[in-house]
């Protein structure tokens, strides 16, 4: 059984390799069309025209674009993603430095979104048929009209400025130090065992997580709600009711197990969107992750960094899509047998 599941997932993941290859070609091509000169960018402003020309030659910018691409691809496979023009150091190092922060943010946001979304969906379902259900759905619609970047600003305004509960910037209070064991700040903070540091780390990530997570949750509410309504029309629920099981037992014992499938799939397919949402949220909270780096790279036309981060975004989206796909296949008996 386990082998079979693994095989399904591996097959889906292999299927995205050609798609990803096309994506790299597209991004590479698009960035080369941009009206910036990577050679000029990576030299000091005092560089003479000859120096720029020499640099162009050294970077292979005078060769045809497909040669440039194959040069890039060969280097990329060995982990060399070029040199960042703004930091004048290895792109891979700069990007990897920031990656854990974004992963932490996106995972916390996902957990938050699932908790809020599931609770919301169950609550609205519990009051189905009453006026409260409509109220719940209207609230859901309202939250849906607040995309992550507006929520981020709203939280800053409400919880950072008007009632200053949470810090609105960075990851730790200034003056605090956390030795890097894992690279993941929250884990490292817990490992220090210093209560003040742990609280500070969680306080700092609270608003970004809430903004990103809350923006994602109404979709979960809606899908879970609809899916529960659907499930309750199935005959086995009716039978369970006839056997005298309580509402609670039916919901948590039987219905939820099946109703959750679309939610799992939704999370998988929408994960890419959530990951992309970190871009603005990180920028607004000066959260030192990939998104912030990306915005900075776009402003300074740091091509190799833009390229690397775009590819990370795309790869993540593709991987989670195909995992969702595989899960849908595995969880849904009709699809599997048919």
């Amino acid at each position: 059984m386990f082998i079979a599941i693994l095989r399904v997932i591996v097959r889906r993941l292999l299927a995205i390799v050609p798609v990803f290859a096309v994506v790299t070609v597209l991004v590479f091509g698009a960035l080369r069309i941009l009206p910036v000169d990577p050679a000029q960018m990576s030299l000091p402003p005092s560089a003479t025209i000859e120096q720029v020309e020499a640099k162009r030659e050294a970077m292979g910018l005078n060769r045809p674009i497909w040669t440039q691409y194959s040069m890039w691809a060969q280097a990329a496979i060995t982990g060399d993603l070029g040199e960042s023009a703004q930091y004048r150091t290895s792109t891979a190092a700069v990007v990897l430095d920031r990656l854990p922060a974004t992963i932490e943010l996106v995972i916390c946001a996902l957990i938050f979104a699932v908790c809020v979304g599931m609770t919301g969906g169950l609550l609205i379902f519990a009051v189905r048929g009453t006026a409260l259900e409509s109220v719940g759905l209207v609230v859901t619609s309202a939250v849906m009209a607040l995309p992550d970047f507006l929520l981020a600003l709203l939280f800053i305004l409400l919880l950072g400025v008007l009632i200053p509960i949470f810090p609105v910037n960075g990851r730790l209070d200034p003056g605090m130090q956390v030795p890097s064991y894992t690279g993941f700040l929250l884990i490292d903070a817990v490992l220090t065992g210093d209560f003040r540091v742990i609280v500070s780390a969680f306080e700092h990530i609270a608003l970004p997580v809430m903004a990103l997570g809350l923006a994602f949750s109404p979709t979960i509410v809606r899908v879970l709600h609809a899916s529960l309504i659907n499930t309750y029309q199935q005959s086995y629920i009716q039978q369970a009711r006839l056997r005298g099981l309580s509402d609670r037992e039916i919901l948590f014992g039987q219905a939820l197990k099946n109703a959750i499938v679309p939610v799992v799939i939704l999370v998988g397919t929408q994960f890419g969107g959530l990951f992309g949402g970190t871009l603005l949220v990180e920028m607004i909270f000066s959260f030192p992750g990939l998104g912030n780096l990306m915005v900075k790279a776009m402003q300074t036309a740091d091509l190799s960094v833009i390229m690397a981060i775009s590819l990370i975004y795309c790869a993540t989206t593709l991987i989670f899509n195909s995992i969702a796909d595989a899960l849908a296949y595995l969880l849904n008996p009709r699809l599997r047998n048919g």
Partner: protein
Amino acid sequence: MMGKMYRLPDPGLLIGGSVALLVLVCGIFAPWIAPYHPNDQELLFILAPPVWADGGSMAHPLGTDSLGRDTLSRLIYGARTAVTVAAAASFGAMLLGAFFAHLAGYFGGWVDWIISRTVEIWLSFPPVVLSMLLITGLGIGIDKVILAIVLVDWTRFCRVLRSEVQVARGQDYVAFARLIGFSHFRVIIREIFPATLPMLITLLSLQMGISVVVEAILSFVAMGVPSDVPAWGQMIADARIDMYYAPWGLALPIFAIFLTVLSFNLFGDGLRRTLDPRHTAQRSA
């Protein structure tokens, strides 16, 4: 106008529609409604508070921004930008998406394969990232923003409509139309397109909300409209620096975007409930 054809107008349709209409009216008649020109600066009167706060005055009911420009007028003119972008971009995305959806769904085979793979590659970019990348290449401007949204969001239409087309393609009347020798073009336009229309209209309304948000995001990161065009996202970006000093400058444009997007969403949901026979059937079951 749509609601009258059906039995009972959906409340979402009604409320969403009227607010959306209000925003639209603000946008169209901005020069007549707005008390000031949106770019008029009063440099000696910057960051004035709104009328209900201490020191506020009726001269600037919603206060002024960091360049002494009237916030109310900028909100009204911002509606114009938002509505223009929302309408044009959504319509463009719909046309492009629907075109490919009909091709893929109707012809199937390798046409479908190519279009579906293209959509798949497109969708591997998070939309925000893709639109910002496009703007980096295209440059800024209302037309560029519209183009970027069209290029990003056509896949939304394409993916959903493709399966609608496939369903319609399987219907008997379509097979019949082919049998009696109608051309592909005629079959698509006369038989298939009407069947996907309800879904198309619903998606269009939801896309309007999305376009408003994307325009705001791009303007917010200074990758949207030029600086002399008032836009809500730009107002947010300007007000952020002074948010401790003048929080209303930040709150008002956020509220404007929220209200507009909410109205388009309610309208879209209402349309879906009203127009989609399957959905109605499901609800009554």
